[in-house]
């Protein structure tokens, strides 16, 4: 197998020294992590390696001789006796040349065998690949798909092992060239440790803020689960109102984010960051909306147009019913049933309008205070809008239920009497249609009722059709609002920002580029990070929500509509618990 050496780019210009890193078992690869420079005391180096807490070994020697430093070759060879290894790599580079020269020493039972290039007919030189990698990027990146379990080191592929090696060596990179330690190293942080003041300040400030928020949240949750608010009717109402749902959902989110324990796993960290960023954006958009709405008393104007709008809707409905009670679209209705249904619905509309007029002096105040809750976020404003629509179109919902029930009863009656007409019966026990012999009077009455229902069917069907269409319009509007709330809740803004601005953090894999080399040197490749695709980012890091999804397929929905069963096209999933 070809020997693969992963060499960090930061060490390309390092002074001569010892290579430290790790051999990857079973793959014939070595990952170089740092170069320890001369002068050093071998005993101190061995001690440092043991105490560093990182899986390190001395891999070999690195020489980049400057002027006046000839004669290092024998010195470097002697080093291999001090650090006993199975394989000892001798890498060297000359100033002005790009390629490395490679030599390998194999030590077997105190006997030194040299396999330097050129002796095996050029075969040795061809059997090594240098893969250059940028240590900072590999250190900070996370390879996807993220492995949560403990991988088996024998069957694991090479790339996760390389990434894992670099990530685990973080303690090694804490020492930079300004520290006065026993060893002087070159790695990606040797010019000085990277850090950001803002990040450090935020880390310091986050602990007391988290504790305060957790305390407030525990108060709030204990208030919500108190006995008064958990009475049966309140529970029912709060489960139907989407604002309460959104509130409970956000509370849960905040609890996740503000937990004082630090997130160790990558998934957990990303979840927290996504929730925090989306909450922040949501609240700022909500505040923007509130500031726009409350300027120039727009909310007062909105409240003033609400009652006339409800009046207008009621007037339109009355006209519609008058039209149905006449001869709608040239169809001939059954006069008596038509009049009964029409008057029944007209009376309901009259009641509804009276209630709206009763409420009208208070509407402005209610709207003013309720609109303030949009400060909690844009999602709250949208849920509020959905709830207000539901309340204002409650009479349409009632009409739909009446029409649907009537139609459903007609259809079931018709189907059962149709079976009687043909001499069959529905067997409830066996859930199938059986033949049955009816008496003459049963047949007579059944046929009579069948005829009545059949001729009344167009009237009921028309009322059902009209109110179902109205109901569907309202449902579509609410559905759009819920979908946008769900989108704002679940979209991973932090992960998307990371993918756009620091694309090496989320890695799908790697890509290689051949670096042009000089003849006589082994193959040099540059390993770059292949960032995760945008669709995979959204799919992997989506926050699970109580998402609104259509409960039935189109076919099932049409079947239900035809039979007159009540439809609730949007169904809330309960939040998944991880």
């Amino acid at each position: 197998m070809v020997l693969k050496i992963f060499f960090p780019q930061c060490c390309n210009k390092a002074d001569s020294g010892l290579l430290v890193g790790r051999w990857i078992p079973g793959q014939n690869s070595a990952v170089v992590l740092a170069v320890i420079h001369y002068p050093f005391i071998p005993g101190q180096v061995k001690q440092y390696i043991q105490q560093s807490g990182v899986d390190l070994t001395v891999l070999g020697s690195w020489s980049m001789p400057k002027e006046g430093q000839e004669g290092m070759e024998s010195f470097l060879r002697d080093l291999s006796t001090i650090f006993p290894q199975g394989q000892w790599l001798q890498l060297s580079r000359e100033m002005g040349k790009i390629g490395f020269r490679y030599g390998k020493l194999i030590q077997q039972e105190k006997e030194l065998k040299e396999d330097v290039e050129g002796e095996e007919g050029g075969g040795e030189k061809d059997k090594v690949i240098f893969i250059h990698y940028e240590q900072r990027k590999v250190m900070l990146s996370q390879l996807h798909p993220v492995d949560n379990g403990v991988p088996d080191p024998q069957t694991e592929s090479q790339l996760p092992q390389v990434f894992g090696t670099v990530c685990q060596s973080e303690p090694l990179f804490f020492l930079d060239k300004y520290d006065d330690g026993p060893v002087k190293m070159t790695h990606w942080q040797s010019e000085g440790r990277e850090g950001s003041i803002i990040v450090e300040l935020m880390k310091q400030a986050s602990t007391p803020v988290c504790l305060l928020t957790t305390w407030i949240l525990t108060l709030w949750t204990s208030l919500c689960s108190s006995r008064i608010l958990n009475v049966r009717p309140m529970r029912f109402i709060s489960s139907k109102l989407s604002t309460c749902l959104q509130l409970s959902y956000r509370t849960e989110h905040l609890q996740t984010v503000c937990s004082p324990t630090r997130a160790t796993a990558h998934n957990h960290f990303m979840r927290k960051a996504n929730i925090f960023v989306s909450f922040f954006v949501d609240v700022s958009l909500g505040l923007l909306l509130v500031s726009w709405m409350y300027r120039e008393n727009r909310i007062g104007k909105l409240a003033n147009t609400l009652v006339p709008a409800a009046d207008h809707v009621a007037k339109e409905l009355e006209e519609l019913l008058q039209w149905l009670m006449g001869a709608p679209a040239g169809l001939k209705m059954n006069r008596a049933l038509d009049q009964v249904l029409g008057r029944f619905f007209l009376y309901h509309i009259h009641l509804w309008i009276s209630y709206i007029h009763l409420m009208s002096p208070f509407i402005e105040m209610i709207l003013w205070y309720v609109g303030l809750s949009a400060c909690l976020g844009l999602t709250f404003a949208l849920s509020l809008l959905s709830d207000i629509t539901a309340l204002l179109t409650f009479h349409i919902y009632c009409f739909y239920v009446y029409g649907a029930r009537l139609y459903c009863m007609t259809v079931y009656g018709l189907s059962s009497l149709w079976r009687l007409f043909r001499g069959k019966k529905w067997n409830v026990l066996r859930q199938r249609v059986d033949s049955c012999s009816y008496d003459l009077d049963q047949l007579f009455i059944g046929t009579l009722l069948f005829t009545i229902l059949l001729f009344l069917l167009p009237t009921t069907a028309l009322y059902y059709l009209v109110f179902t269409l109205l109901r569907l319009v309202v449902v579509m509007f609410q559905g759009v609002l819920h979908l946008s709330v769900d989108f704002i809740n679940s979209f991973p803004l932090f992960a998307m920002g990371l993918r756009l601005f620091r694309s090496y953090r989320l890695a799908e894999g790697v890509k290689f580029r051949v670096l042009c080399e000089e003849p006589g040197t082994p193959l040099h490749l540059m390993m770059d990070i292949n960032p995760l695709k945008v669709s995979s980012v959204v799919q992997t890091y989506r926050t699970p929500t109580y998402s609104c999804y259509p409960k039935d397929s189109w076919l099932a929905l049409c079947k239900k509509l035809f039979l007159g069963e009540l439809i609730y096209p949007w169904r809330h999933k309960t939040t998944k618990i991880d």
Partner: protein
Amino acid sequence: MQNGDQHYSMEDETYTDIDGKAISLECQSHSGFCREFTVSSAKVSIGRVMAYTCAVWLSAYIIFFVTENTAVLSSAIIITLVGMMVHIHFVKVDHETLLIIGSLGVQVSSSYASGRESTDFIEMGKIKDIVINEAIHMVRKIKDIVINEAIHMQTVIYYLCILLKDPSDPEAVSSVVPLFQSSKPRLNCLVKVYKSCQEILAKC
């Protein structure tokens, strides 16, 4: 040659893809066990671009003449621009590259006309073999005027693909990754690439 690579350029043999358009193959040998194959398709032809643009704008002018609505013209311009950008960024593949590095893996990359590159690297441990497979390709165009009915003509095409190992069963093939999907070179080109790849796979 200044560097140690060896290039093979294809002046003596011209390759075509399955539709008959000319393509070119370039083989580069970086080392004894590292080779790179690039298949380039035809570039975006200026004649077709102009034809499409003229067709769209002519129809937009006709609609404007009928409806007297200037929004039609501006929307036609926007549609043309957006359509062209989407085409060169997402649809038109300029060249496809196969980089095979012995005992490390195989890298497959497609480069689009706008310069975007989409790369995929498969480790050697997951690769079972590289083979040439047959497939049945449906051609919906009626090429022969003699045949009056619309016939779906099927042709057998060859494509190069990588067989991946199943992690649970080392002898079974879990999935197939087809190569050179957009350029679709013919068998003579594929055989050349196949022989080169097999040499490297045999060595390591």
